[in-house]
């Protein structure tokens, strides 16, 4: 929980399953400040190929606790900039096969416009600032 909003950033071993996360808990945590009218979810999925070469999976690596610290710091910035009510992030570490979810971002806001803006801003900054790495597992090498 941060100020007037809710922030969480968790690392998950392997793929992120449907329904994983804490939407209900975070809405409850907002208490009387809960004026959420939009819940946006973005799920990053491992593509079948990279640069034209077939993939089997991606191996993700993090650097705890710096990964979580940076992920929360960015969320705090964006929460203040946009006024959204909650930013929750799950990111995989370890092997995630093609077609599975490796990154789940959930933003809750009063209205859709600031929620969409916050989601886009978070993803852009995460890809620049949060220590997370992926290594391809190529078809034929697995």
């Amino acid at each position, binding site marked *: 929980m941060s100020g007037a909003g809710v922030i969480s950033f968790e690392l998950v071993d392997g793929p992120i399953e449907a329904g994983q996360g804490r939407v209900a808990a975070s809405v409850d945590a907002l208490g009387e400040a809960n004026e959420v009218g939009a819940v946006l979810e973005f799920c*990053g999925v491992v593509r079948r190929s990279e640069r034209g070469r077939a993939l089997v999976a991606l191996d*993700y*690596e993090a*650097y705890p*606790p*710096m990964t979580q*610290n940076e992920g929360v710091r960015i969320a705090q910035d964006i929460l203040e900039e946009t006024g959204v009510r909650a930013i929750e992030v799950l*990111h995989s570490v370890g092997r995630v096969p093609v077609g599975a979810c*490796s*990154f789940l971002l959930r933003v809750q806001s009063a209205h859709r416009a600031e929620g969409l803006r916050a989601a886009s801003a978070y*993803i852009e900054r*995460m*890809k*620049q*600032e*949060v*220590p*997370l*790495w*992926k*290594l391809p597992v190529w078809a034929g090498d697995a």
Partner: protein
Amino acid sequence: MADPHAVMFEVRLFGPQAQLAGRRVLELDGPAGGAVTAGQLLERIAEACPALAASAPASRVAVDHRVLAPEDVVDPAAEVALIGLISGG
């Protein structure tokens, strides 16, 4: 022959940079008794490990899990990490 007074830096590597370097930790000699900034350490990494020469200039140095500015001095006794080629999501 190695300078017995030289400071040794151990730099942790991750992801593609660890793969390129073929190791998880890079050991580097610093100047004897002299301070090394984060920017200078990136230059030393590129010199000492040619496999990282292309990516080191665009990387950052973290000490005890905090990113340093290029002019900040690196404490060799702290946990030093190379943060580069980030690719989450």
